[in-house]
């Protein structure tokens, strides 16, 4: 037995809550009678609970949606309850409703729904912004090992948004084979509640067979005892930057090689050519002087190259000067 105040309390609560609640009774496969709605529900069709009570659903609800609502009642009758999320053009405006319909006795149904319009709109804007910035976002429930990916994250992995179920394991599978262990170790750190490195670069192999370079930044959120709750991640596509860096490195390398080639040419080849010509012309003393110049130039080129190596590596390591074995017949 419920206490006497129970109904009064329910009505007050129902009127105050933003939750949309409605009770209907199906009278035919294509229509129902509205038995009771709370104030929040009546506002969706710019009406009042009193005005709606006892009227047909087909009279008070926008006609294009009635058939779909009736199908949901039939489904709830079959399964007991059914969850849904719908977008409706209603007298109160465009609304996204996330709700549950439960079948009661005597062809009655109770439905309650949250108005998630603002949340979905915020999410849509976030998707737009992150897509514009080419940044993928993910939420990783560490305790349950489940994940949610933004549309851009799907795209970075070569999928259409929502094409597959998001999961940490699937993400790891898309790491480049040479980076997979490193990413796996980083994920393991998160599972253990240890702070991940601030931003780390990995290569991803998309389902579309494209390889992308990405910078992944993970923030771990833990409870008071340090147990990991969830992690938020941002994935930035840096493929173009990496390609530019690689190209710039190639250009720098080519410039260095050109500089070295000119140094060898001007100092060594020219002098050896002089030796050659002097010998052809029987000018022995000139040939001797040119030989000295060629040797000196060659030694200078070698010294400059070794200085560059030392500057890059810090020192000339033992073994670095070992003479390479030459194929037989090419002299010693």
């Amino acid at each position, binding site marked *: 037995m419920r206490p006497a105040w129970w109904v009064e309390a329910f009505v007050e609560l129902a009127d105050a809550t933003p939750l949309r609640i409605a009770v209907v009774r199906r009278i035919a496969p294509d229509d129902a009678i509205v038995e009771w709605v709370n104030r929040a529900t009546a506002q969706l069709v710019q009406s009042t609970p009193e005005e709606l009570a006892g009227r047909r659903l087909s009279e008070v609800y926008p006609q294009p949606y009635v058939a779909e609502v009736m199908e949901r009642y039939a489904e709830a009758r079959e399964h007991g309850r059914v969850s849904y999320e719908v977008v409706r053009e209603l007298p109160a405006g465009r609304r996204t409703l996330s709700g549950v319909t439960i079948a009661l006795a005597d062809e009655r149904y109770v439905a309650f729904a949250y108005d998630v319009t603002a949340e979905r709109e915020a999410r849509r804007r976030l998707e737009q912004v992150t897509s514009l910035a080419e940044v993928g976002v993910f939420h990783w429930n560490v305790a349950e090992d489940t994940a949610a990916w933004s549309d851009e994250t799907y795209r970075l992995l070569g999928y259409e948004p929502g094409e597959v179920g998001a999961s940490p394991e699937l993400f790891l599978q898309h790491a480049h084979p040479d980076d997979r262990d490193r990413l796996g170790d980083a994920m393991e750190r998160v599972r253990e509640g240890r702070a991940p490195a601030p931003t780390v670069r990995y290569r991803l192999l998309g389902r579309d067979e494209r390889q992308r370079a990405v910078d992944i930044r993970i923030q771990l959120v833990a409870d008071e005892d340090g147990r990991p709750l969830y992690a938020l991640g941002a994935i930035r596509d840096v493929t173009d930057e990496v390609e530019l860096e690689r190209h710039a490195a190639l250009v720098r390398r080519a410039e260095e090689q050109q500089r070295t080639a000119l140094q060898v040419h*001007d100092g060594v080849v020219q002098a050896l*050519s002089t030796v050659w*010509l*002097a010998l*052809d012309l029987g000018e022995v003393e000139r040939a001797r002087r040119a030989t000295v*110049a060629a040797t000196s130039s060659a030694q200078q080129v070698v010294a400059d190259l070794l200085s560059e190596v030392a500057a890059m590596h810090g020192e000339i390591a033992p073994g670095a000067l070992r003479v390479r074995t030459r194929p037989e017949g090419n002299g010693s």
Partner: protein
Amino acid sequence: MKTVVIADDEAPLRDLLALMIGRDDRFTVVADVPDGPAALEAITVHDPDLLVLDLSLPKLDGLEVLERLTDRLRPAVVVLTGFADPDTHARAVELGAARCLVKGTGFADLLAALVEASGSGELTR
């Protein structure tokens, strides 16, 4: 007798080239110069039949010299370079050089190349 200008920044080599070419009665060396601008100046002054041109030159390199030769003042050019790569040679020929020889291995062919180039050079001048 064909007149020749030699352009090479390596002074000892330039002297030897002048010696070698000067020993041949068919040629007389009218100038030997160490850089690109001096080569263009010598061509303006002497209007030679032939130019022996190094490619690696200070101020203006040999390719730039070839680029700046005008139709009116264009001696037949034999490039004599330390660069042995075919791309560089092809570029020099594209810019009007009659022959490209590599220093060292090409010295023996230089006089023959000058004879050959001077013949074709007269036809084009």
